[in-house]
């Protein structure tokens, strides 16, 4: 495997970008990430982005966002209709081939103009499930209910996850839900959104974007004092139909973690993309996290969940903590699809 590292990143997440176009959002973010390591677009070997036409309300929406990159002279470029973490995976693959040394990855999502829980219903089987318009919170609640009734976790434990996220999010400028005063009792006193999920069990919806610059080998060392080296990255998918899965498990997450080498050594931190507290509990089990791994030091996706970007934000947050010396070995995770159907794991190290 060729050595590839995260050398720079930029994140912006807010509640709603009502009067901001995707281009206006991404121009400053892309400039921030590139200029932090002294690169211009001419220095970038490959560019890859992730976004969703369904959020933009427009087919080929990413075409316009290309304007934020400055794509002339023409660039070598691709786009995935996936979270930016998967765009990073594609760029990492290109770097493995060895003909380029740098890559720019960006992604963005703006779900505030619509009702996210309804929009996600059209991700379900279009013939048998989507016509029933199962909203995303209700689908996640089925999973949470199964988890609680299996005895694997208690409502109090889920509340603890929510509280920890809110505490960690204090001081994160990109977090929407942060509170030093949150307690298990205060969370448990909240009214249900979709029984058994309370507001604090469900990720705070945000609009935003994220940019990451990747570099290989000596190029990474020359650009960054302490690059976050990608030691393993893998992604897997489970079946789609909810009825054929054990919803208290996420085998694709466990397999991706294994293939990415996560269990090989101690993890200082783990940034997980968990849209609900119940899903975070499932992921912690599947990813094999030990008691001394700090989980979601940024507050995680519960504190701010930008569709199509939350996964890449996790990689950026974990990489920052490696580059600033807080962590030596970190796991970052991204998910997609209902009930943790698809999962990506990226393991990074400072040495």
């Amino acid at each position, binding site marked *: 495997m060729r050595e590839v590292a995260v050398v720079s990143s930029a994140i912006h997440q807010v509640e709603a970008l009502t009067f901001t*176009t995707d281009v206006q959002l991404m121009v400053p973010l892309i400039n921030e990430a590139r200029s932090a390591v002294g690169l211009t677009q001419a220095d970038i070997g490959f*560019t890859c982005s992730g976004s*969703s*036409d*369904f959020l933009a*309300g*427009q*087919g*080929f929406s*990413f*075409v*316009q966002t*290309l*304007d934020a990159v*400055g*794509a*002339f*002279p*023409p*660039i*070598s*470029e*691709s*786009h*995935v*209709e*996936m979270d930016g973490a*998967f765009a990073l*995976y*594609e760029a990492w*693959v*290109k770097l*493995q*081939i*060895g*003909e380029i040394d740098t890559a720019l990855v960006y992604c963005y999502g703006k779900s505030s103009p619509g009702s996210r829980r309804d*929009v*996600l219903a*059209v*991700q*379900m*089987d*279009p013939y048998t499930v*989507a016509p029933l318009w199962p909203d995303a919170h209700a689908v996640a609640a089925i999973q949470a209910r199964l988890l609680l009734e299996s005895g694997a976790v208690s409502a109090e434990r889920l509340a603890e996850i929510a509280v920890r996220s809110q505490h960690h999010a204090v001081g994160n400028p990109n977090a929407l839900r942060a509170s030093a005063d949150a307690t298990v009792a205060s969370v448990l006193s909240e009214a249900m959104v979709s029984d058994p999920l309370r507001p604090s069990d469900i990720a705070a919806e945000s609009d935003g974007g994220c940019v990451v610059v990747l570099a290989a080998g000596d190029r990474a060392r020359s650009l960054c004092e302490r690059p976050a080296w990608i030691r393993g990255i*893998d992604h*897997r*998918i*489970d*079946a*789609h*139909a909810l009825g*054929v899965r054990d919803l208290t498990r996420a*085998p*694709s997450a466990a*397999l991706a973690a294994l293939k990415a080498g996560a269990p090989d050594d101690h993890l200082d931190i783990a940034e997980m993309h968990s849209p609900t507290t119940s899903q975070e509990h499932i992921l912690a089990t599947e990813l094999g996290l030990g008691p001394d791994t700090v989980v979601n030091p940024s507050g995680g996706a519960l504190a701010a969940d930008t569709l199509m970007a939350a996964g890449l934000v996790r990689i950026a947050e974990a990489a920052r903590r490696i580059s600033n010396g807080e962590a030596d070995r970190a796991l970052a995770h991204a998910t*997609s*699809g*209902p009930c943790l*159907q*698809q999962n990506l794991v990226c393991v990074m190290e400072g040495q």
Partner: protein
Amino acid sequence: MGSERTAVLGVGQTHYRSTRGDVSMAGLVREAAMRALADAGLEWSDIDAVVIGKAPDFFEGVMMPELYLADALGCVGKPILRVHTAGSVGGSTALVATSLIQGRIHRRVLTLGFEKQSESNATWALSLPQPFSVSINAGAGGYFSPIIRQYMARSGAPELVGCMVAFKDRQHALSNPYAHLRQHDLTFEQVVEAPMLWDPIRFSETCPSSDGACAMVLGDEAAGDASPRPVAWVHGTAMRSEANNFPGRDEVSPQASRDCAADVFRQAGITDPRREIDVVEMYVPFSWFEPIWLESLGFAERDQGWRMVEEGATRLEGGDLPVNCSGGVLSSNPIGASGMIRFAEAALQVRAMAGDHQVDGARVALGHAYGGGAQYFAMWVVGADKP
């Protein structure tokens, strides 16, 4: 170390029709995938990963349909990537799959492009009103007709060159059992007399709206060597994109197109494409894009591409550079698959497996796709010989 050699082990296509009401989306993609596996002599368990591409999700009304299609594509427990790069997506998808082999991530990858346009309405899907911008509501033809007019003005091409391309591709389609439009009784006069949609584009010079899927199985060098059937070796791959709108942009022959062609030919060691390439599958959704791309790709001098059409150089029968022997996008257009069909048909030609539309002795072929406002380009050169 260099990149791993990559081979096309198998190709599978569905029949392209305006409505494939007999199958779901899952049934459609599975049909193409199983044909590709059968062609490669492989099983689902031989596949390490899947790379799928399609055009906007609004075309079927399903957000990220690859999630729902994971089961049908046999990739439970495997990696799946979903590519979306405008009209070039089918080509880009094949190139992402190729990179997984070239980078030695996987040994055998299934790649597939599809569109089931009958599930929705493409004109609606492309005309959603947007805040902060004015929709021209002109469709793709309305966008490209001024570019074609510019080409006609600067090249001095005779008015009926576009009709010649359309007639040629529809005749080629008669030799392709998968083609959507198979107009046995079509005459050149009917092509010329068809209604004008977006002057100078006649109805007869546009692509149809199709349901369909196209799949390929790609493998590494060892898999290529072990294949029971002839394989196509990848000699070069390139993608380029450029911004849509800025002063001085050459919209007829965008620099991204020229850069992409230069890159892919450099990798394949091609210095004289007209002489060294035996057959081309290029993305021609409106007839006039054949002479336009012939020039941009370097098969003809600037402003001279139309002469190749007029001389019959791009015909399957008797041409020295047959273009779109499958009938091309003008005869079948399941948008998300259209680019991959070009790449797959190029592979079939150098495998000598193109059936009735085979070019005798084809050894080197170009697969080409473009998208957006002629901004996104994906190309590969495949050959019968190992590079």
